[in-house]
């Protein structure tokens, strides 16, 4: 078979995964059903904080189609342990016990107290309403600083709501915070956000009772981590538990978790010996799926009169919610490594305090800690520029770390792989037409236009590619950070990749196929990528933290290298030359000096399969597995520019233009990379202008549906202008860095800085996000009041 000469890496190859998604043939979790399947629905607390004096399930049990109603007490014997929490970030962290159903007390609105099984979806929902809980409402606390006072203690056994304190420990010369000629202090309050994957969560548990074998189909980002941890919670040996992530309709971190419903479905399948299906409703999703952000920052920036930043010191309060989910207190810590951004600062300090509240648990939401860090840094840099009367672009320019191609230590202690921050910065300003924008802004101010122009900048770095296992161990994370890939070259010329990361919209199937195609001399269409099933690709650490390209893909790269070496042995044997006499190019071995003596990988896959004539000791088949543990993180970077128009009478801001110049290292598929930025930036604009989970004083979630939690539509966002710079990572063989989170990291401060910039001539210096029309209007009124 002739090898393919075309190269695919770096090309905008159209996605292999599209056909089923475009034609309604996808297998999302709610499209799956099994014979004898029952529907599960969860009875949830309507109160943010309440004692449970009793639960009467009798009328629910008597309803048509109802097959069982179970409370925490009914299921006590089912559990091998509580729901998993895998990141106890300090030795003395206080860990709330978190069972799949709560027994004596509900601690947030949505806390599960009982579960119903019925023949149909509707019957299950009807029965939920018929479960009568004798509640004893308690005072609730959702405000972080109020909760820290411990007037209401949410977990009595812990004795306090202040559950963890973590400090980076500082970097550089801390005396600058006392000695610097310019010191700016700022406070930023970031509300909770609801991730809103358009597909809600769901799962379907199946059991082969005779064999004790369980299969859980789940809309999850993390089938492998779920397998280990749910095995523990449900008392199922990992060897008897298979997790399948079918087509998953978006995650953004919300499916980077192991949830009560997954454990309940498994336990009830075991209890009833029938398959159990649960599909989350959107209203339920707002209560029962993790939230993100929810932090308060006190920030101090130390600088010279010229605007050179000397130090950045941050103290953060972080809302954990009522319990920890999988990683909860680790999220602020993740941000704790990037508060210096792309700037060359001498001193660095970061610490945070985690506080339990009567609200939905928080955890990783796209960016996970790094958007929080970038937001406060970039807001503070603008505050410094305003204080000094300087252009915010100029202040950034004089502080950027100069270009570097090899890994070097940063002030916060970790090595940064490579970077060219001035390149993305200058290109972003150029693309935006920064100077022209400033001219237009001045003219509008001069004319006192109702619509004023604002220009906002955000320069960021992020820490991706989670992660070196030894560093994760040092940070007290329970698992490693490696990933794995198996490559099989089949005798019909096709290739199968089985990989331990699993996408939910990111286009990995296409991206991995491009890489394998180039090495093996086939086309992406010849490559099948299998993932998301622990029986098919048993080794893996899943997809989150922009790790799939920098870790999973590196495992693929090394597996392909192993294939090449194995094939070389066979080619040398067949061509009767020494291995050293062979040259490898685009999927084929040529004898040096005799180009007509060739064996392609696809030829060798046949002879390796029938194994009629192989060298001594050669294992039949062209198949190899590699596990890659990265030596470092990867550190993408970039600069974004947002241009807004603000109506100074109503306070409404509209994004007029958005320019993003990112450096995610080597790009495998530019079309897919651009798509990641479009989506991430839009989520960032949403965070900056629209979205906010609001609780009332009793702990009721006021933004409880998509009608009042404002996920923006196409009308509210513009088309984007993108460009890239490529600084190869030194962490992995292909030099990739990751792009999944850059948009949500960079965009919120770019947008909020732009809004403040639009009204700064009126005296406005601060607006919290989201910069709603009312907040902007109030800030303008406040500034006028101050002036009067």
């Amino acid at each position, binding site marked *: 078979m002739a090898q393919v000469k075309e190269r695919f890496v770096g090309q905008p190859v159209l996605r292999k995964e599209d056909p089923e998604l475009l034609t309604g043939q996808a297998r999302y979790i709610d499209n799956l059903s099994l014979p004898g399947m029952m529907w599960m629905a969860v009875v949830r607390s309507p109160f943010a904080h309440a004692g449970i004096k009793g639960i009467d399930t009798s009328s629910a049990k008597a309803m048509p189609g109802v097959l069982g109603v179970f409370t925490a007490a009914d299921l006590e014997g089912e559990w091998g342990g509580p729901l998993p929490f895998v990141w106890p970030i300090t030795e003395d962290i206080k860990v709330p016990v978190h069972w799949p159903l709560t027994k004596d007390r509900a601690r947030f609105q949505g806390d599960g107290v009982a579960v119903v099984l019925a023949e149909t979806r*509707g019957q299950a929902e009807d029965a939920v*309403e018929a479960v009568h809980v004798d509640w004893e409402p308690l005072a609730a606390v959702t405000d972080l600083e109020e909760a820290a006072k411990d007037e209401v203690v949410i977990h009595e056994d812990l004795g306090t709501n202040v559950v963890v304190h973590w400090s980076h420990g500082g970097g550089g010369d801390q005396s600058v915070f006392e000695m610097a000629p310019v010191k700016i202090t700022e406070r930023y309050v970031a509300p909770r956000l609801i991730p809103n994957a358009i597909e809600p969560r769901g799962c379907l548990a199946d059991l082969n009772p005779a064999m004790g074998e369980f299969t859980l189909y789940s809309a999850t980002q993390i089938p492998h981590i779920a397998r280990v941890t749910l095995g523990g919670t449900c008392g199922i040996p990992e060897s008897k538990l298979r997790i399948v992530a079918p087509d998953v309709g978006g995650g953004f971190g919300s499916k980077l978790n192991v949830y009560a419903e997954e454990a309940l479905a498994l336990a009830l399948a075991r209890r009833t010996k029938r398959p159990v299906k649960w599909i989350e*409703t959107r209203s339920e999703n707002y209560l029962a799926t993790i939230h993100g952000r929810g932090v308060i920052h006190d920030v101090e920036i130390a600088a010279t009169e010229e605007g050179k930043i000397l130090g950045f010191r941050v103290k953060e309060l972080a809302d954990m919610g009522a319990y920890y989910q999988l990683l909860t207190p680790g999220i602020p810590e993740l941000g704790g490594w990037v508060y210096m951004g792309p700037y060359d600062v001498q001193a660095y300090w970061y610490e945070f305090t985690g506080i339990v509240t009567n609200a939905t648990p928080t955890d990783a939401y796209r960016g996970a800690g790094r958007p929080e860090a970038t937001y406060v840094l970039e807001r503070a840099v603008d505050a410094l520029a305003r204080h000094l009367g300087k252009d915010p672009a100029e202040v950034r320019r004089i502080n950027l770390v100069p270009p570097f191609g090899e890994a070097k230590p940063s002030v916060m202690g970790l090595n940064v792989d490579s970077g060219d921050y001035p390149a993305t910065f200058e290109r972003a300003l150029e693309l935006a037409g920064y100077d022209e924008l400033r001219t237009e802004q001045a003219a509008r101010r001069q004319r006192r236009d109702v619509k004023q122009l604002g220009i906002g900048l955000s320069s960021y770095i992020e820490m991706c590619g989670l992660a070196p296992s030894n560093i994760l161990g040092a940070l007290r994370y329970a698992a490693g950070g490696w990933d794995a890939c198996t490559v099989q070259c089949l005798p019909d010329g096709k290739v199968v990749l089985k990989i331990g990361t699993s996408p939910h919209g990111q286009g990995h199937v296409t991206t991995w196929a491009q890489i394998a195609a180039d090495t093996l001399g086939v086309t992406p269409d010849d490559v099948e990528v299998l993932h998301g099933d622990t029986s098919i690709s048993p080794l893996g650490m899943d997809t989150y933290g922009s790790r799939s390209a920098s870790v999973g893909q590196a495992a693929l790269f090394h597996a392909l290298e192993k294939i090449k070496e194995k094939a070389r042995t066979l080619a040398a044997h067949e061509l009767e030359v020494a291995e050293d006499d062979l040259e490898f190019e685009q999927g084929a071995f040529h004898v040096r000096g005799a180009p007509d003596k060739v064996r392609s990988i696809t030829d060798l896959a046949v002879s390796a399969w029938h194994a009629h004539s192989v060298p001594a000791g050669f294992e039949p088949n062209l198949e190899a597995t590699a596990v890659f543990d990265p030596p470092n993180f990867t550190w993408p970077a970039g600069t974004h520019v947002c241009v807004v128009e603000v109506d100074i009478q*109503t306070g409404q801001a509209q994004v007029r233009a958005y320019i993003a110049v990112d450096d995610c290292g080597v790009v495998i598929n530019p079309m897919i990379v651009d798509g990641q930025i479009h989506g991430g930036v839009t989520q960032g604009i949403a965070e900056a202008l629209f979205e906010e989970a609001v609780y009332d004083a009793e702990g009721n979630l*006021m933004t409880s549906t998509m009608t*009042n939690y404002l996920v*923006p*539509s196409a009308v509210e966002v513009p088309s984007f202008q993108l460009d890239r710079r490529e600084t190869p990572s030194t962490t992995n063989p292909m030099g990739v860095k990751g792009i999944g989170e850059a948009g949500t990291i960079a965009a919120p401060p770019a947008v909020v800085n732009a809004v403040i910039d639009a009204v700064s001539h009126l005296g406005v210096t601060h607006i919290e996000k989201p910069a709603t*029309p009312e907040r902007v209007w109030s800030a303008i009124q406040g500034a006028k009041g101050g002036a009067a």
Partner: protein
Amino acid sequence: MIPAPFEYARAESIDHAIELLSADEDAKIIAGGHSLLPLMRLRLARPSMLVDVSRIGDLSYIRQDDDEVAIGALARHHDVANSEALQQLCPIVSYAASGIGDPQVRHVGTIGGSCAHSDPASDMPTVLLALDASLVVRGPNGASRTVKAADFFKGLFEPDLASNEVLAEIRVPKTTGRGWSYIKFHRRAQDWALVGVAALAGNGGGPAVALTNMGERPLRAAGVEEALAGGADPATAAQRADEGTSPPSDPFGSAEYRRELAKVLVRRALEEAMVR
């Protein structure tokens, strides 16, 4: 989520609908269902029976009738928005309809449903109030009465409509030659109005200004109208936009902000109406 169980009956005529409604006081009319079904899915509404009026023949007309345009209650927002008769004779109605919900909602939701739901955040009631439009209500035994918009929209989700009455027709005056404006201020295109303003000005009738979502029902901005009648310019008159209002405070905006917004939007609406 799906609704709690209910009975369903399809009305063949208005009288049939009234008969079905009279037999069950927890029965509700469904036309497009775009106000009712979301509430039923969240189980915030649980009627015992739905009386589907959507198949009743010829209730979706839009036709000129002397000095008025008569709109059948089953005319969909999409039909109202695209009606040439309305675009020519009473453009504020078609314009406001084009901004209700989203295209999918406009393909199903009806003008009658919108009025009968009587949500103070809805656009159409405000426009009808500014127009001093009439609503034709049919009741048992062939009874029919015509109610002015100011009386029909009585309170929060409370139309002047008994449980066995059916809203049959909406009658709007021709506004040919009059300037008009409807400004809907919202965060996202698909959202309800945070505040909305309907204004009519000039040529055959004093200025009329009505407000969306500034109280428990659509309100006339009486202070503004009075100021305009006294010769005030729009900017001055608009300062009285919040007189007599009681706007809500919710996650979209505080009452204070809505009051200020009403002033800004009334001025803009008047200025637009005066040049249109």
